[in-house]
């Protein structure tokens, strides 16, 4: 049994598979689409159309790099407002063409920068959260690594929340939590244990619906995730659009 802090370290490992690795392994084809039609194309978020078997789905992912060079290009997986606006544009497109949506969450948080504030990171996240609550297509959200703060939730409102066994999902990083509540960022380890951030914690709290077991065989992990996605999309597609939205609303409504 790993400690929460050990999982934090695993979730952040540079060589851990990233969103595009999952996308490549789960889907038969993937065509990436770019830009928010307003300001730019944020490389910390990837999105596009993929084929699940022969069903077109819309895929969104927060993309970290594996090397320093890749991480600079991907801004360490910290999206700017245009990243969230691109994601929302693609998700609204999915609704128009009746495609289910699969999101892959892996971010240390939304980028805290001058430009991000000038273009309102807050509004971009808020809008995405609100609209996801009302999209009339099934949404499955998968936390694959680090799900940190509003930057994760911005693409995390759906009908099913799945977590990889070693993924974490938290209000902010254990370092940030420790620095605010313990006034000491070196107490991150202690914070991690108290924050309830592991997949198991989230399942107990009624937020994560399912945990995907991890092992050394990435192929096996993605196949297990693929089976889960197919099975649950089938279930969700049986619901009328109204039922789908009522159930999604209830899922969040009961969290108190």
């Amino acid at each position, binding site marked *: 049994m790993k400690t929460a802090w050990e999982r934090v370290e695993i979730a952040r490992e540079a060589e851990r598979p990233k969103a595009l690795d999952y996308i490549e392994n789960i889907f038969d084809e993937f065509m990436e689409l770019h830009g928010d039609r307003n300001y730019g194309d944020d490389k910390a978020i990837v999105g596009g159309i993929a084929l699940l078997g022969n069903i077109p789905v819309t895929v969104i992912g927060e993309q970290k790099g594996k090397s320093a060079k890749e991480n600079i290009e991907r801004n360490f997986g910290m999206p700017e407002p245009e990243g969230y606006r691109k994601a929302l544009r693609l998700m609204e497109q999915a609704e128009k063409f009746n495609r289910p949506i699969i999101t892959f969450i892996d971010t240390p948080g939304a980028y805290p920068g001058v430009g991000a504030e000038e273009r309102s990171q807050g509004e971009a996240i*808020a809008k995405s*959260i609100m609209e996801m609550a009302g999209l009339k297509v099934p949404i499955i959200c998968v936390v694959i690594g680090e799900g940190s703060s509003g930057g994760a939730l911005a693409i995390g*409102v759906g009908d099913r929340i799945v977590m990889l066994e070693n993924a974490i999902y938290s209000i902010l990083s254990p370092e940030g939590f420790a620095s605010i509540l313990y006034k000491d960022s070196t107490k991150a380890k202690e914070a991690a244990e108290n924050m309830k951030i592991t997949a198991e914690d989230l399942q107990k709290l009624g937020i994560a619906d399912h945990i995907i077991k991890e092992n050394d065989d990435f192929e096996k992990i993605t196949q297990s995730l693929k089976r889960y996605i197919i099975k649950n999309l089938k279930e969700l597609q049986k619901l009328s659009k109204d039922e789908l939205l009522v159930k999604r609303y209830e899922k969040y409504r009961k969290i108190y």
Partner: protein
Amino acid sequence: MVINKVRKINHKESQTRKNEAASDKMIGKWVKCEACKEILYKEDVHENLSVCPVCGKHFRLSSRRRIAQIADENTFKEIASEILTKDPLKFKGYLEKVNALREKTNLQEAVTCGTCKIEGEKCVLAVMDGNFLMGSMGSAVGERITIAIETAIEKRLPIIIFCVSGGARMQEGIISLMQMAKTSAAIKRLQDAGLLYISVLTDPTTGGVTASFASLGDIILAEPDALIGFAGPRVIEQTIKQQLPEGFQKSEFLLEHGFIDKIVERKDMKHTLGKLLKYHK
């Protein structure tokens, strides 16, 4: 000399009007304006709606006084007051802190919701309070705000939310984060029902509240010179390793960048809201 006198008065006053002082950041009979440094007579500031009569600085306001300034007399009926703080992480010292704050501020949580009339127009009003754990949103705040939104939908009323918040409440962890989704989903239903939502941003509105219902108003108003943003200025400075420019993340900055509709001084707030409610009748 003067300072000593002020201190003495402060001490005596603070015993008798502890709650008032705690909620309004007013110390004794005198208060120093944090902006222009002028020493002001408390009565003058109070009568001026807690705005500095010299420089116009808008001091932070308790929810109780905010409601008194905005709602027509004797029309505010509180709802959701039975919704109280929960402790999902069993976080050490959290409930003790909340209990101490209840005593000190005479508030049960960081938001007070109800129905009222503003210039004769009926609406739902939710007012956050920065004196209660920096107006942070935990499960109780999220639940109260969601109930307020659902009440607006049920009674087909417009809703006004006065925001002041440091963001999601750390002590309740992921449950606090999920309140962003819960409240925003409720706002989505309100929008679909065709009802008016006015969000009023006051100093400070940051973090998870900015990244949820605060930014989702049909009309977004702000008080002058309020700090409004997602990331806190210190976090940004640490990230970019540069000092931020003067006025960054202030109401005027957001107006310039197109993210709020209008800056409204406190003396004009009630009438502005009254007019907006009438426009949408």
